[in-house]
């Protein structure tokens, strides 16, 4: 069997298949740079009034800074602007006081908890902390999931 033309053929086939698989695996890791700095400053805690959703960082950083009550205590948190259903960008509707996704109608309360439409999980939080100069700093490299009980992590919010 080994050494025969058939064996040689299958060996070549297996080798080609292996190389192709490796190539495919390489394809999963494209040559890209992950854009904007994963850490950026958003301003002083006093800039964010209680009950307000700050939208000005949405376009550049994909984050809402929200100062709202969660579990009875006011917190400032950085909510990621990606719907947990299929990844569209929801809109903040000031009049209705909710985030609403235009793709399949998922709705989220101001604190990011899902309540309508198909979204299965609350919106995700980025890490937020106070920098040395007294400004709030968002760290996009860390994510916190409510359904995993991670919103009690002190890194996921800032209380004055």
């Amino acid at each position: 069997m080994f050494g025969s033309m058939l064996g040689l053929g299958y060996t070549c086939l297996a080798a080609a298949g292996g190389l192709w698989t490796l190539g495919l695996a390489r394809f999963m890791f494209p040559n890209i740079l992950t854009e904007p700095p994963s850490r950026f400053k958003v301003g002083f805690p006093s800039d964010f009034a209680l009950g307000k959703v700050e939208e000005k960082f949405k376009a550049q950083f994909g984050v809402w800074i929200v100062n709202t009550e969660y579990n009875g205590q006011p917190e400032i948190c950085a909510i990621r602007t990606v719907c947990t259903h299929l990844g569209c960008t929801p809109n903040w509707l000031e009049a209705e006081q909710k985030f609403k996704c235009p793709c399949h109608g998922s709705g989220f309360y101001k604190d990011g908890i899902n309540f309508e439409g198909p979204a299965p999980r609350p919106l995700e939080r980025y890490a937020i902390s106070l920098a040395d100069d007294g400004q709030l700093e968002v760290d996009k490299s860390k994510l916190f999931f409510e359904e995993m009980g991670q919103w009690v992590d002190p890194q996921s919010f800032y209380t004055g």
Partner: protein
Amino acid sequence: MHGNHEVFLSRIQMGLGFYYLILCILNWSAALMAWRSGIRPLFKLGGLTVSNLALWMLLGAWFLILAPIAMMGSPPELPEAVKHLINSLSGPVTLTVGSLAGMAFLFLFRNWWTKPAVAWVLLNLAMFGMGLAVTDANFFEIVGKPDNVPIVGLVFLLGFFTWVATYRAVINDDRRRQGLPPMEKVDDEKVLVWPDLVYTEMICMVAVTALMLVWALALPAPLEEPASSVKTPNPSKAPWYFLGLQEMLVYYDPWYAGVVLPSIVVFGLMAIPFLDFNKGGNGYYTIEERKFSYIVFQIGFFELWIVLIILGTFLRGPNWNFFGPFEYWDAHKVLAQNNVDLSQYFWGGLLERGMPKAPAGSSAGTEILYILWRESPGIILTLGYLLLLPPIMAVTVFRSFYAKMGLVRYMLMANLLLLMASLPLKMVLRWTVNLKYIISIPEYFLNF
């Protein structure tokens, strides 16, 4: 829409006038055909017998009168009360129940509505209704959007092909009752590929190319704003042929509605030849010999594909809310839709206690057990639906099917049917009791 109605009417007056003119020409062509191929009495009105020739002439004259009126900018319009009625009726529940009732009507009265004269009157009514409805600015904006024009065409094409197939099936079923072979067996004269078929194809090709050219010139492709990763258009719609899928995604998790269910549809369609034991209808139209297949197909294709596309195209507006066809697309329309999981209903509503939750700091295994315990009502319900129902159906409604198909083929068919039914069931549950997920395990992205 709060814009000036007269300005809007002046914008569409010429188009609408020509639309009525075309309807007039269509009806008079039908009259000409009736005159040539034999005038038949249709019905009696008092002592007067109305023939098809007279009716088509009258209808044509009616549209001929409407044409100049529309061109002068004062076309007949739907009363506001009717618009409000249609708006309030076009919720998801009415739409589904209505389309099911419509299908039942089409099935039960197929001998009546497939009569050419009846079908022609129905077509006239639909076209006239369209002419009335486009005088509403909100309706025109949705229907006249270049993206949506093909879907309006699709609705009429679907009507036409449904009519052709049902008409021929009715004739064949009639002949079968008289002991005659189907029309296709009688009219089976062989024709040559060259020149008959190739010529037909070439003429079709030229005609379709001409149509596409005119279409492309008359209705330019709509361009949207530049793409941005932080701003999603509102509403954000898939291409029209995917709007059924997008509608499914409203009710299910992405992995199920976007991957599993479409795959089941594809594999289920591939399985049909192996599941089908009915030899009737091979090469000819029939309904009576294939009632089960016919009804399943109509529900799967018409109800779960076409109706969902129409719903997604015309009735879904900003924030993916429901809007009536004559309703202004208000991005701030408030709809209360608090969706609740089955487990929340069970533990919170029924047992009036908190959801089972693993104590803080417990191991992953314990957490999974707690999650399974929390979702047990939904899991039991789903397993019962997929494992218990097929045997029950085998000894009740599908007794003869089971005898003919054997265990494996029957189980396959029963499960495919149940999975197909899971979509409308879930939709109805969402609309009526605001059910979000039957099994909800967001911790592991598993929701059903």
